[in-house]
């Protein structure tokens, strides 16, 4: 049975302008760290990692005048919690360009336990043999359960375990912000 609790917004930690600033900065960091865009592939983790990756690619192409390939990765089939969930996530299509010998930047909205990233790395390895994998997240809320660290972070957001970070993007949600949500007991 579901807990008798509801999520309530506690604070807005990024707005539309803040998100844009973070992504522009990171797009520069990616190019700088990799000394250009050669061999670079951005792979967004479905679902909100995908529009973030697309925006990063657009910012990079604005400044570098080259197109960076963007892929979409569905990690449902790689999750380690399928039997623990009583609901069942939809499987979506994975569309990833050739990653053999490439530097892949995995892109996701929130980094939390690290399990999603682990699953994504497993999935990537099945799709080819990248020369390296880097990780970009819009927010890092801590509480890692696996030895995983992001290479590019939009914003570090210290949270408690009963809080939740919700990233909302225009492409998916028709609004643009990052919220901290708090679990509160439902009062009847």
């Amino acid at each position, binding site marked *: 049975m579901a807990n008798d609790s509801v999520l309530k917004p506690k604070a807005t930690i990024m707005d539309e302008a803040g998100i844009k600033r973070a992504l522009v900065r990171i797009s520069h960091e990616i190019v700088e760290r990799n000394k250009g865009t050669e061999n670079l592939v951005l792979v967004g983790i479905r679902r909100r990692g995908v529009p973030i990756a697309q925006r990063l690619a657009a910012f990079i192409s604005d400044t570098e005048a080259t197109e960076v390939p963007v892929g979409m990765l569905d990690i449902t*089939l790689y999750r380690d919690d399928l039997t623990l969930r009583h609901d*069942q*996530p*939809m499987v979506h*299509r994975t569309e990833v360009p050739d990653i053999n010998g490439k530097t892949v930047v995995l892109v996701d909205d929130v980094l939390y336990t690290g399990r999603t990233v682990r699953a994504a790395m497993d999935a990537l390895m099945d799709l080819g043999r990248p020369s390296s994998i880097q990780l970009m997240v819009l927010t890092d809320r801590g509480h890692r359960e696996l030895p995983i660290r992001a290479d590019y972070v939009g914003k570090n957001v210290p949270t408690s375990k009963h809080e939740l970070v919700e990233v909302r993007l225009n492409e998916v949600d028709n609004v643009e912000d990052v919220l901290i949500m708090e679990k509160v007991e439902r009062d009847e």
Partner: protein
Amino acid sequence: MNDVQQLRQKHILGLAELSVEEMTLILQTSESMREIIDRPIKQVPTLRGRQVLSLFYESSTRTKASFDLACKYMSAGAVSISKDSSSLTKGESLRDTVRNVEIMGPEVVIMRHPSGGACHYLARNVSSSVINAGDGTHEHPTQGLLDMLTVLQHKEHLDGLNVVIVGDVFHSRVARSNIIGFSRMGANVVVSGPSTLLPPYIEEMGCQVESDLDHALAEADVVYVLRLQLERQSASYFPSLREYTELYGLNERRLALAKPDALLMHPGPMNRGVEIDSDVADGAQSVILEQVPNGVAVRMALLYLLLGGGE
């Protein structure tokens, strides 16, 4: 979250038991699975440690191989017992087989069986999920689903399509599943064949009957040719293969009566030169080979949907 959808069915016994929503979910999931089959490493770890058992009481090459591949691609453990090796030939009753299955405890049992309803029997007697891989002349739901998936890859939707199913509808579980599936998804299904091979009241399953094939083919978006069991001739269902081929064989002339972009399908194995000419079977409109990987994708999707969720 809307992104979570589940099958309400514990078993896949027939398309008759599946709603439009459930069929849509299966087809969407199959479409996602399709990509895995084209990867260099055709395996995902999703069902690692899960056990699937197949019981084939009738010979089958492609359906069995397709289920086996689906299990492998999903990393499920798969064991199959087929008629030659199983104790069916030694006279063990299905009930005793079922008891053995139950004690082995697979989470999914796939069965093909010569008796209609055998999978219903199995489902009543085991705690596993049961997937019908063909029961008598009743249903072959995974074939119906893979056929719909194949059409969906070429046409935007099934709604409003004209689907013509030609041949021995009487003895065909494939025909029954396709009639139910396509008609439920909104297609107009017409069956055609010698009147001796059209079962009574078939129109009540959601199709029209048109014995004149040329007439049936007008405006067809999909032409589905059924396999003709050659031994039906000796049982007097039709006088000769020659006459059958003349009246109901699918050839270039006949295919040209359908819409120019009509798809040609066949569940296999084909009797070339009997129910279908090689010209068209290997021609540009044929999607017969695409049906094969789609079969694997559909079966992967079903394994995921039946096993993926927890308790």
